[in-house]
C-alpha cells in the first residue's frame, strides 16, 4: 500500500491544527510516551471527574501520524468514562494491527481513517503511541513505550 493514502485531509488537518494541544494546569493523571525508533515523544495530561475524562491535553514532538492520532483520540475520549476509554484503546490497537471486530470498527467511528496503517508495519507504533500513553495515564503508569511487552508489532523496530 502507498502511505500517501493514509495522509488524507483529516490526518493532515489534525497534524496542522492539533486539538487539545498543550498541558493541563492541574491534571489528575499524567503519562509520557516514547517511541525510541523514531523519537516520537508525547506528554498526556488528564483531569478525571467521577471516573470520566473531563479534560485531556497532549503535547510533544512527533510525526504527523502520531500527532493526528493523539489529536483525534483526545477529541473522541473527552467526556467518556474510564471504562469506555479502555475499550477504545483496545479497539484502536486492534484496528492498527488489522484485527478489529465488526463491533470494534463501529465503535471507532472516524478513527477508522487509520485503518490503512496496518499495511505499513513500520508506522503502526506511531499511531498507537498516544493510545498506549492514554492507557498508562489512566492506570497510573508514569511512562510508557511502544517497545517490549507493549509492542504492537513485535520485532518491527
Amino acid at each position, binding site marked *: 500500500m*502507498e*502511505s*500517501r493514502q*493514509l*495522509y488524507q485531509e483529516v490526518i*493532515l488537518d489534525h*497534524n*496542522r491544527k492539533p486539538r487539545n494541544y498543550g498541558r493541563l494546569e492541574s491534571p489528575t493523571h499524567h503519562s509520557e510516551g516514547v517511541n525510541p*525508533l*523514531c*523519537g*516520537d*515523544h508525547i506528554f498526556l495530561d488528564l483531569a478525571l471527574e467521577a471516573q470520566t475524562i473531563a479534560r485531556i491535553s497532549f503535547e510533544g*514532538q*512527533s*510525526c*504527523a*501520524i502520531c500527532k493526528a492520532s493523539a489529536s483525534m483520540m483526545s477529541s473522541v475520549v473527552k467526556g467518556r468514562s474510564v471504562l469506555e476509554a479502555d475499550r477504545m484503546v483496545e479497539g484502536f490497537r486492534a484496528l492498527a494491527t488489522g484485527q478489529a471486530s465488526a463491533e470494534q470498527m463501529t465503535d471507532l467511528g472516524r478513527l477508522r481513517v487509520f485503518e490503512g496503517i496496518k499495511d*505499513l508495519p*513500520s*508506522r503502526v507504533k*506511531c499511531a498507537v503511541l498516544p493510545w498506549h500513553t492514554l492507557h498508562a495515564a489512566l492506570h497510573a503508569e508514569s511512562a510508557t513505550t511502544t517497545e517490549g511487552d507493549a509492542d504492537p508489532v513485535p520485532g518491527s523496530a
Partner: protein
Amino acid sequence: MTMLDIERLRGDFPVLDQVKVNGRDLVYLDNAASSQMPRQVIDRIARYQSLEHANIHRGVHHLSDAATTAYESARSSVRRFINAAEDREVIFTSGTTDAINLVAHGWGRACVGEGDEIILSEVEHHANIVPWQMLCEEKGARIRVIPVDDRGELDLVAYASLFNERTRLVGIAHVSNALGTVNPVREMIATAHAHGVPVLVDGAQAVAHEVVDVQALDCDFYAFSGHKLYGPTGIGILYGRAALLERMRPFKGGGDMILSVSFEKTTYNIIPHKFEAGTPPIMPAVGLGAAVEYLSGLGLAKVAAWEQSLLAYGTERLSAIQGVRIIGTARHKAAVISFNIADVHPHDVGSLLNDEGIAVRTGHHCAQPVMKRYGVPATVRASFAFYNTRAEVDTLAGAVDKIRRLFE
C-alpha cells in the same frame, strides 16, 4: 582520468533493476546504512560456499586448505585496499562496532586508568561513544568532546586544547554518518601524536567513498564494516599498528587464538589470530575480499569523483526547494545529505518517499548528540553510492517538493 560507466556498472547490481517498489524503479539512497552487493561479490560467496568451504587453520585436507587460502587471501586484499604494511595488522571482526569494542577492551582496559581522558568528537556514531563510556565507567576515566560548528566542522583549536598528560586516546569518525563531514583526520592524528596519544579512526562511512591509506594517515587503529563497502554483513575490519596489537590483550578467548592450552597456562597465538577466537565468519570475509577487489578495480578516485558530483547536484536541487534545510554543510563532505522539510517529521517524509520507490534513512542515525547539537529530533538522510545517477537525484528532488506541498 576516465569516468565510470555508471549505466554499465548498475548492471552489476541485481537489486537495482529487479526490485520495484510500489510499481516504481528502486531509488536506493540508503547506502550509508548498508550498500547493495554486486553480482561479482554474490558469485564469489556462492563459489566459496559451493566448492571451497571447510573450517580454516585446522584440517590437513584439501577443502580446509582451500578455505584457509580463501580467508587469508581476503585479508591480503583488505591489506592492499587500505595500504596496511602487513597482513597481520588486519583483524577480521564482525563489524565496526565489534572492532571498536575490541580496542576498548583489549587496549583500553590495559591502558586507561582512573582520572585518564579519552577525546571523542561531537559527531560520533553511538558505536564510537558507548564502548568508551562503558570503559570510563569501569575505570573512573572521562570523555572530553571536540565541539562541532554550525556547518558540521570540528573545532580544531578546541581539539588541540583538550590534550593534557591524562589523555590516553583520541577516537574520531573519518566521515560523519549523520552530517557527511569528512574530518581532517590526518591533521588531527598529527596533533595527537605530537602529544604521544594514539588515535582510533571510525572509517565505516569513509572506506567505500575515498582512497584510504592507513600509513599515509598514520593512524593507530582504523575500523570499518563490510556491508557498507558492497560486501556482506557480519564482517568488519580492525586495522591496528602491529606494535600496538602485539601489546594488546585478546578480548575473546577460545580456539584458534591460542598456541597452547593447559589448565595451568595458555599461550596466545600471534597477531592477527590472537584476536580471532573461534571459527570466524569465513564466507563473509571471502565476500569482503571480493568487494574490495571489485571497488579497487573501479578505482576509488573515480568513485569519489562521481559521488562528489552527485553530492553537488543533490545539494543544489534540494536547497532550491522552499522549506528544505540541509543539516551538515561542511566544506569537505562525503555524498551524504541530511535534511528536513519545514516542520514535516522525517518519518512522514520517509514513508512518502517510499511511495515513489525512494529508500532513505530517517531518524537520529545513531548519533543523538548530533541531533541535539542541531536542535532536531531526527533528519532524513539521502546517502549516495557510485551506482546512483543524476536522474535519481531528480526523482528525489521532485518527491521532496511534492511532500512539501502536501503538508503546506
